[in-house]
């Protein structure tokens, strides 16, 4: 099986409807800015940012876009820089501007303790295995020098980063196109709502399906 995900909607690009009545000015403005104004790193240290980039590349791999991936890490750094997000946090979890750097540091410490190398230097399989353990909360608490996970539940850290990364990736028109989402729809909306029905401007599935 190919490692490269195959979209059921080859040839569909939601941006082809840009000039249609499916896009109002407010939508064009925000999506245009999203595509053109990718923020610079401002919050995380260079090391933490490199770790975050490596993590995101495993959480949302994009082998189908070599050299031109949907940018995710810059927006996550921007989220920390502006302290954006949903605002609430569990009582057992530090604020994100403290928790994320700690988690990235802990992940790197975990990689060094297990493999003698920083997270960014590990192979994809080793990275995935390590991330899987973090997702399950099975970190080497106490065995890693400095106990970097103290006060930070690893599974919550994992799901917070994953959720935020998905919030960035699936806000990108490239992601809308690959899943066949109709995208912006104001003021035109839709007419055909039934099963196996689509309006002419919606994604057409591959014939073999």
């Amino acid at each position, binding site marked *: 099986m190919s*490692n490269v*995900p195959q*979209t*059921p909607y080859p040839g569909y690009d939601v941006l082809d409807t840009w000039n249609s009545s*499916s896009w*109002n*000015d*407010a*939508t064009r*403005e*925000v999506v245009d800015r*999203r595509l053109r104004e990718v923020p610079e790193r401002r919050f995380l240290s260079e090391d933490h940012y490199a770790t975050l980039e490596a993590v995101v590349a*495993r*959480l*949302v*791999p994009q082998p189908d876009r070599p050299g031109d991936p949907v940018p995710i890490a810059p927006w996550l750094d921007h989220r920390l820089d502006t302290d*954006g*997000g*949903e*605002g*609430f*946090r*569990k*009582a057992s979890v530090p604020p994100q501007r403290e928790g994320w750097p700690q988690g990235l540091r802990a992940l790197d410490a975990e990689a060094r303790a297990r493999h003698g190398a920083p997270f960014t230097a590990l192979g994809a399989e080793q990275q*995935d295995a390590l*991330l899987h353990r973090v*997702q399950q909360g099975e970190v080497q608490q106490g065995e890693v020098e400095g106990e970097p996970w103290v006060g930070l539940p690893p599974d919550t850290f994992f*799901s917070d980063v*994953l*959720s935020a990364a*998905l*919030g*960035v*990736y*699936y*806000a990108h028109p490239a992601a*809308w196109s*690959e*899943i*066949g*989402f*109709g*995208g*912006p*729809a*104001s*003021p*035109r*909306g*839709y*007419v055909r*709502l*039934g*099963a*196996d*029905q*689509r309006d002419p401007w*919606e*994604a057409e*599935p591959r014939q073999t399906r």
Partner: protein
Amino acid sequence: MTDDILTTPRACEGRAPDVFSADPEACVPMRTYADDDEVDFAIVGTGAGGGTLACKLAEAGFRVVALDAGPFWRPLTDFASDERAQEPLYWTDERITAGDDPIELGSNNSGRGVGGSTLHFTMVSLRFRPEWFQSRSRLGYALDWPLAYDDLAPYYTEAEDALKISGPVRYPWGPPRRRYPYRPHEPSASGLVLARGCERAGYAWASVPLATLSAPHGRAHPCVYRGFCAAGCSTNAKQSVLVTWIPRALAAGAEIRDLAFVGQVETGGDGRATGVVYHRDGAWHRQRARHVVVAGYSIETPRLLLNSATGAFPDGLANSSGLVGAGLMVHANDGVYGTMDEEIRWYKGPPVMTLSEHWNYCDDKDFPGGYAFMSQGPLPIAWAQSVAQNRGLWGLDLRRYLMDYNRMAGLKIVGEVEPQDANRVELADAEDALGLRIPRVSFSYSANDRRLKAHARRTMRETLSAAGARDLWEADGTAHLMGGCRMGSDPATSVTNADGRTWDVPNLWICDGSLFPTGGGVNPSLTIQALACRIGDRITTMAHRGEL
């Protein structure tokens, strides 16, 4: 939307935005009051409770100022068809969530802006089952409300008329009722999955009575089925408080004060409220009022009362019972999802178009309370996050699974949880940027709640399989907030009486979902608006009798 709207008030100098105009400068005239002008009512919050009450009181001739922490949106020109860009519709101030089952806040159950969370609600407009108002005495669990269904029925009708609810000719559950004002919307493919499953599994189903137009209403057009309802309606088909009660309130002489964050209800030496202290345009102000109504919903209402503590009220205002913040409820929002053979494309149309209230009205079950289950239509970000969170998928496995987005169907419940006083809102030690202590929200399911959730998951699996879905999986979650300042008949066990008037401070009122003693198995917004209509009429009646 520009950042300006999040910082610069729009309703001032005698003008408020004309929400029905595509001209981003268009305004309607607005009566304004000076801070030292003692108005009849200062209302804190303009959502389903406060916005509705502002209209009712202004139309009754009272001098009303309604303050909201959020902006005054112009839906036609501000709102993008985009999940991420619309995040400012949610209340995302810092909050701590705790307990055995800490609830998700933020986009899950709060709104910020004139119109409150009705800006992004899914428009489901259901009445409570009549027995739920006396669930202790008639069904044997939880608490009785201090009023009966018959007290509220005329106000349900009033709210349904005001919102031009589009609903079925014959709704299968509840007492006989007259027709909904507007015809029902034709169910989308995702709605018909529920219908097919219910017919095969033997449950009655119906089109959901929805607060989105199926025919024109004033200057608002019918729904175009764009599907971004949870990200704000950019066509005004959605009958949010912003485009229904608020324009009426303005026309009747109410002032709506946007981007005005109320930090304290002030009380005088006689123990009566004297007004509110609010932050706007970078400075603190003080609006004097003969009466204060708190309508900030189940977290901010108790938070404000607790943050308004004084020497005379050391535990917070209206808190002699110790119940301010207690009895916080959510709805269990468990879901079941699966893959269909046909394309559903659930991004089109209102996300919730059909439902079954079977288990709200059938009492042959192993748990107290009830639940409705409803069809679903999440947008990509919400969907991706739910799959990741509930199925544990990430990486290429997740990307591949999400490529079947257009073949997904699902059901979710709105399930009643028991009111427990240990589930509550308190003040954390931390303070926000304005120096106000932030809320700490504790929630844990009871054993009965867990039985309800398990029962509901079985029902939804059965129904979704019967509809032809495969590869089923289950999702956890909660929706809505209710309780936190319950109404009641006894000052020892409640915060207000049936009129929302606090027992302790005679000119301090509450008018929002925090009044709910129990949550029922339906979305709360219509009941909140009906309660607000009733409270408005009760206040008017009492004023005429000299009882204010």
